[in-house]
């Protein structure tokens, strides 16, 4: 079985005019990786690290400056139209739907664009509408939808023609926690049911943790890490933070095992404890805290992508 994505030394340079000087900027620098069918890959990196540029080269929008790329066994630029039948892309910021038309009509048009058989298209649309719970707003114009509703419609639009590869560019950005959860569950189901390959760029570590079994970290155009999420955590010592609101001001909790005390607010009413997700869990830390003081409320902070990337980069420099 051919790999779904195969890149070798993929490079993309831009000429940037700064005043009277011109510099060549390498947005993507000698990227080499392979994605097999059925994988779910998280593609993370800081803003401007080269993620969007990579996606544009994978889908045939941009021509690489150097190197090779094959998507679904096809050359993206030369075979763009054939490739379009096998790839679905969800852009977080750009819409593929027709703005002033009811959502349902967009699906109808897309079915015609992909030349889907009428009955099969109807069945597929019904299935997606059902599983993404869009029935209530199928006749609402897209411009009147909330962000969560629109993102569900975008995902349905990208999956309508049952592509082998689905690329999602920041799909959960701006969504509330519940919507993110439902979207992730849907993607997991879709993958299990059809073996669709997922490539996901995101700033949300929660997305990566729950959806992906592999992580690619890109920094300044270069591939800084390619492996599992666990491996990444181990490499950079990724920490989650438990924030506890206590019932009474308490001196700093410095002796909870497996944690580092980050700080206290309001004389000890709120305290922040960092712990390594590899060695302990939020539940264990909470139990330990509960043994010492009474906890009124709590929240857990996930590690910052920027932080992870920075650490990976710093790590790879050593």
């Amino acid at each position: 079985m051919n790999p779904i994505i195969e890149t070798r030394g993929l490079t993309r340079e831009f000429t940037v005019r700064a005043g009277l000087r011109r510099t060549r900027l390498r947005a993507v620098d000698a990227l080499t990786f392979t994605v097999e069918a059925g994988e779910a890959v998280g593609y993370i990196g800081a803003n401007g690290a080269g993620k969007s540029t990579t996606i544009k080269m994978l889908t045939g929008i941009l021509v690489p400056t150097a190197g090779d790329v094959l998507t679904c066994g096809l050359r993206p630029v030369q075979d763009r139209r054939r490739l379009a039948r096998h790839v679905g892309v969800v852009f977080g910021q750009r819409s593929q739907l027709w703005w002033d038309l009811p959502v349902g009509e967009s699906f109808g048009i897309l079915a015609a664009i992909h030349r889907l058989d009428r009955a099969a298209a109807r069945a597929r649309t019904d299935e997606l509408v059902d599983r993404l719970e869009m029935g209530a707003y199928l006749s609402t114009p897209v411009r009147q939808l909330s962000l969560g509703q629109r993102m569900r419609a975008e995902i349905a639009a990208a999956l309508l023609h049952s592509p082998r590869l689905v690329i999602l560019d920041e799909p959960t950005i701006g969504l509330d926690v519940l919507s993110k959860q439902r979207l992730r569950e849907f993607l997991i189901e879709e993958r299990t049911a059809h073996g669709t390959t997922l490539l996901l760029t995101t700033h949300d570590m929660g997305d990566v943790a729950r959806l992906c079994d592999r992580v690619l970290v890109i920094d300044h155009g270069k591939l800084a890490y390619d492996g599992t999420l666990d491996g990444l955590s181990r490499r950079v010592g990724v920490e989650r933070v438990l924030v506890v609101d206590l019932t009474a001001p308490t001196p700093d909790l410095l002796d909870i095992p497996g944690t580092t005390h980050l700080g206290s607010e309001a004389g000890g009413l709120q305290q922040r404890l960092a712990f390594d997700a590899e060695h302990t869990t939020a539940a264990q830390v909470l139990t330990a805290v509960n043994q010492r003081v009474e906890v009124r409320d709590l929240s857990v902070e996930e590690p910052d992508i920027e932080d992870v990337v920075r650490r990976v980069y710093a790590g790879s420099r050593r």
Partner: protein
Amino acid sequence: MAEPVVHQGSVGPVTRLAPYRAVLAARVRAQRSYRSNFLIDLGSSLLVGFVELAEVWILFHNVHVLGGFTFVQILLVFGIADFSFALADLFFGHCDNLPTYLRAGTLDVFYLRPQPVLMQLITSEISLRRLSRAGLGVGSIVIALALNDIDWSAARVALLVLALVSATATFAALFVWAAGLQFFLVSGAELTNAFVYGGRYAATQPAAVWSRPIKVVFGFLFPMAFTAYLPALELLGLPGPQWLPAGLAWCTPLAALWSWGMALGTWRVGMRHYQGGGG
């Protein structure tokens, strides 16, 4: 789960056009839903047409013959040019939306669909409000044909039809050419408007009055003289100036081909620039 059956290979012409028909039908529906705006646009298009006709009429109110044409004769030129331009504008006029797509990044969405990008741009909208202007054009042609003493023959009828088709094609090419240039000029719509709408204006004029630079630009580079003026000369049985004899009227299809060649070439170069290919 059953894969949706996708039609491959031998696709009949009807199915090949289905994606474009679907988008256009949706645009027509959308325009109908903005009813009051649409009616205003329809009315204003017509009014603008009348105003432009009035300008021509005012000139002939002052002099009887201009560039070898009387008002009734120039009405034929005006009618053919205006009708063809309105028709081209109806189907291609929105191509100047390209800068908006470029700035918003929504052009990339076109790349993700299994159709040529230019075809998607062309079919992304249809400006039905131009119908009233096209109506004005038809009216002008009909009145001009009635009031002028035309020596009808099968050849002349064929020429009229040929002229209308070629003129529409030539103007359509202008819109595509202008769109292709937008890949380079980020907000350069005014530059291309000069030649698209200036071209329309030139097409309604009796080319005999043109100075040398205009002859080069609108006589041959953007062949406006071939759209309406030359066919009108031939239909009316007038000889035309030395540098543009009436017989050239039969070359209108060549003018259309030349224009489309220029348009597609510009579009190709523009796309390549956008995608960063070719170094």
